[in-house]
């Protein structure tokens, strides 16, 4: 069974840290590493597993194979068909989620202490011995095709897919990971076996575990669950920079409210200016009701129900993206405002008051994220994937505190590029023409690197 996957624009790791959780680094007898927070007060455990690669590993002409394969992991394995597998899982009251994103395959599991070994055995079977029965393939293929058709009618999805296609031609990021009706129709069982072999590999696994489990128990669990995966997979994609610059693309679509997504290149997570950029984004459009964009576009003028921006750090590209929806009659006004504010902040930075408020919020909100086993497990696995040390959770807020007005002003000036902020509008916007032919073409990553 496949569900519609909403890829979050905000990465899990988000920024920073100052929470006092006790993170243990566990290595299983078989050499598999995990981070663990023991939490024995409620008798269950949450596991978050990510395998780097994800939909990036679709082979040529097989777009959608990793997605379809992932959806089939719960559709029968070992000696169980789909229904037998689900009956067994329901009987244990365990929950398993299998999702795929551009950069990773994600497995989320929650299991009771009283039957954890059986639940792990079932999950192992799904990961290691999926059957890919023909009837299951056809059933899920039909579901994926229905989703592709629905996405083609959904203004928000049309907008973000259009932007990504313009920005990353020829790169996996430029093509929806569901694949196209044509590519999905052509996928065979062999393609799914290949996708499974390519994607689920031990050398790219990251694990976060939180709950009623000891380090020793977790070590045994990891070997049992993941020990039989192959060691490594095919090469991962190359770094890429957004190739689209400035202008507006209009996609004509009959809907009362136009949707706009907009973007420009972002900043690498490892860049020394990253924290300044993060705070800057918060002031600009990341901070809910308090952001500049929300205040100007919604609170003062009532042009939208919501507008926001985020720094999107994918494994092989860095973007700064935003979105807004407004009636066809007013979307042009909303876009003009975004451009003006983008230019104003690039030139003038933000006020002392905005900076202080942003830092207070960002540092105050951080510990509030650690509020449930699955949430914490997600944070742990996200940190590992971007190479942060465990003590990042303790030090993170000091990195935010260290951001100065000068940093913000410098980063705003260097990074924000109003002339190159590109818009994609889906709808029938009034008085808004496609202003420029988007410059499509591959710009080598290093040439186009951020200033």
């Amino acid at each position, binding site marked *: 069974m496949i569900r519609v996957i909403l890829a979050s624009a905000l990465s899990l790791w988000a920024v920073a840290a100052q*929470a006092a959780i006790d993170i243990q680094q566990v290595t299983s007898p078989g050499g598999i590493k995990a981070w663990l927070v023991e939490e024995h007060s409620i008798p269950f455990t949450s596991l978050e597993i990510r395998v780097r690669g994800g939909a990036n590993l679709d082979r040529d002409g097989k777009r959608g194979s990793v997605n379809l394969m992932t959806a089939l992991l719960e559709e029968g394995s070992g000696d169980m068909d789909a229904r037998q597998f689900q*009956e067994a899982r329901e009987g244990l009251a365990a929950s398993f989620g299998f999702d795929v994103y551009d950069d990773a395959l994600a497995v989320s599991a929650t299991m009771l202490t009283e039957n954890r070994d059986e639940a792990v055995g079932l999950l192992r079977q799904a990961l290691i011995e999926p059957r890919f029965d023909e009837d299951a393939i056809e059933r899920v293929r039909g579901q994926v095709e*229905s989703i592709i058709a629905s996405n083609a*009618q959904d203004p928000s999805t049309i907008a973000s897919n259009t932007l990504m296609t313009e920005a990353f031609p020829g790169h996996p990021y430029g093509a929806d990971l569901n694949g196209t009706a044509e590519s999905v129709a052509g996928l065979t069982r062999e393609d799914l076996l290949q996708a499974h072999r390519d994607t689920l590999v031990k050398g790219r696994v990251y694990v976060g575990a939180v709950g009623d489990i000891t380090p020793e128990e977790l070590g045994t669990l990891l070997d049992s669950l993941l020990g039989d995966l192959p060691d490594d997979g095919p090469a991962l994609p190359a770094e890429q920079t957004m190739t689209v610059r400035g202008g507006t693309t209009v996609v004509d679509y009959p809907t009362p409210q136009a949707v706009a997504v907009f973007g420009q290149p972002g900043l690498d997570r490892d860049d020394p200016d990253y924290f300044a950029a993060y705070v800057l984004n918060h002031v600009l459009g990341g901070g809910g*009701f308090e952001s500049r964009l929300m205040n100007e576009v919604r609170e003062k003028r009532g042009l939208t129900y919501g507008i926001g921006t985020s720094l999107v750090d994918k494994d092989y590209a860095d973007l700064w993206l935003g979105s807004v929806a407004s009636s066809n009659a007013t979307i042009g006004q909303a876009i003009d405002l975004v451009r003006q504010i983008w230019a104003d902040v690039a030139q003038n930075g933000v006020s002392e008051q905005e900076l202080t408020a942003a830092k207070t919020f960002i540092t*105050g909100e951080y510990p509030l994220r650690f509020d449930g086993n699955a949430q914490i497990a997600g944070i742990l696995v996200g940190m590992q994937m971007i190479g942060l040390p465990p003590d990042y959770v303790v030090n993170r807020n000091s990195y935010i505190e260290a951001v100065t007005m000068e940093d913000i002003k410098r980063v705003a000036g260097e990074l924000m590029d109003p002339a190159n902020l590109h818009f994609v509008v889906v709808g029938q916007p009034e008085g808004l023409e496609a202003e420029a032919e988007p410059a499509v073409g591959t710009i080598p990553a290093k040439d186009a690197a951020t200033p």
Partner: protein
Amino acid sequence: MIRLPALMLGLLAASPTLAQEVTTATLDNGMEVVVIEDHRAPVAVQMVWYKTGSADEPPGVSGVAHFLEHLLFKATDDLESGEFSRVVAENGGTDNAFTSYDYTAYHQRVAADRLELMMTMEADRMNDLRLTEQDIETERQVILEERNQRVDSDPSAIAREQMRAAQFLNHRYGQPVIGWRHEMEQLDLQDVLGTYDLWYSPNNAILVVAGDVEPEAVVALAQKHYGAIPAEPGLPPRERQQEPPQMAARTVHYEDPRVSQPYVARSYIAPARNAGDQKDAAALVYLAEILGGSSFTSVFAEKLTFETPVALFSGAGYDGTALDDGSFSVTVAPRPGVSLEEAEAAMDQALREFLDEGVDPAQLERVRTQLKASEVYALDNVEGLANRYGAGLATGLTVEDIKAWPGILQEVTADDIMAAARDVLDPKSSVTLYMTAPPEPEPVPAAAVAPAEAGTPEIPAEEASQ
């Protein structure tokens, strides 16, 4: 942040159901207080639930309860417009609000030591809002854009709105919470203040505080901040217009060119959880799970996907937390090549077979096991528990009812479920929705473009097919 004092660990591990203690109190002015303790993280959630929602609106002003919810973030006598959320954010917290048919709730999530500040501000806006005409003008545009985004941009949302309007002829559950556009466009300050002055008072409100807090301290703070607000003596009873008995099945056809996946859905009038009487609702929770709760093991999955390839997706839904009778719904999205008529016929047959065959005991036990386990998982989600109490109390349940609910769920039998199914799955009290794209122009058969024979009606092919 998680703190795990060693001493407490042993205690809690021994008795996990004690991980969250629930304490209740009532202030002198009638405001109910619920405190849910969870000391694992130094976080507190404050929620204030008003026992009023869109179904309490007078006729002609649909959407006013939700509009008011937006406007509560504007100025009061003590706070500037927008200051509420700004102060929450400056304290590292998050806040929002939501409106439903039966309640309107405001909530903040902050470090536990900021709770009093949250109470100060929430108490302030219970009675002291200072709205301007400019607030009305601007925010009305925002709610219209919200309607655009949530409903008018989504054919499925439009279809569900039409279906619900057809289900409830007389009860205001048939009016959308967001409001009908033409009425939203006319909402003015008087409409908003009418709702505010009538319903926003401590004797119509429930305070739920959950997290790293001590009950005595919370009640003392509540007394200080909310207890000072006088009760509204003129608080009206929540007597809504009730539905007449439904005498005929109703059908709604919604066509929209943006539909790519057609589906058929049906809703039936169904009882809600009632104070002291939650058994029928508990049986309906099982019925929804058994009919459509799993894409693999439910009755619909088995009969409509695995045995005969009719459905791409199917489901069943029931939410019993409502003040008046609500609805039970079923949905089937057919595979390509299967018409909605065929899908509906297959769904009806599946329902008939289920009524004949009864509940599979193994499936029943799996659902029971999962509902039981969900109580363990729920202990990890203190906001979910807060919602349980807020929504329950706002829809006429008592604290005892809410505490008893998981136990009542565990006691449901196959007979209860079948009795509920026979009661509820009555075509006469149903609305069936067909959602589809307009028919494609049919390809013109070769014969049709041949010169018409004399005497046959001359209908140009293009017109005939449009």
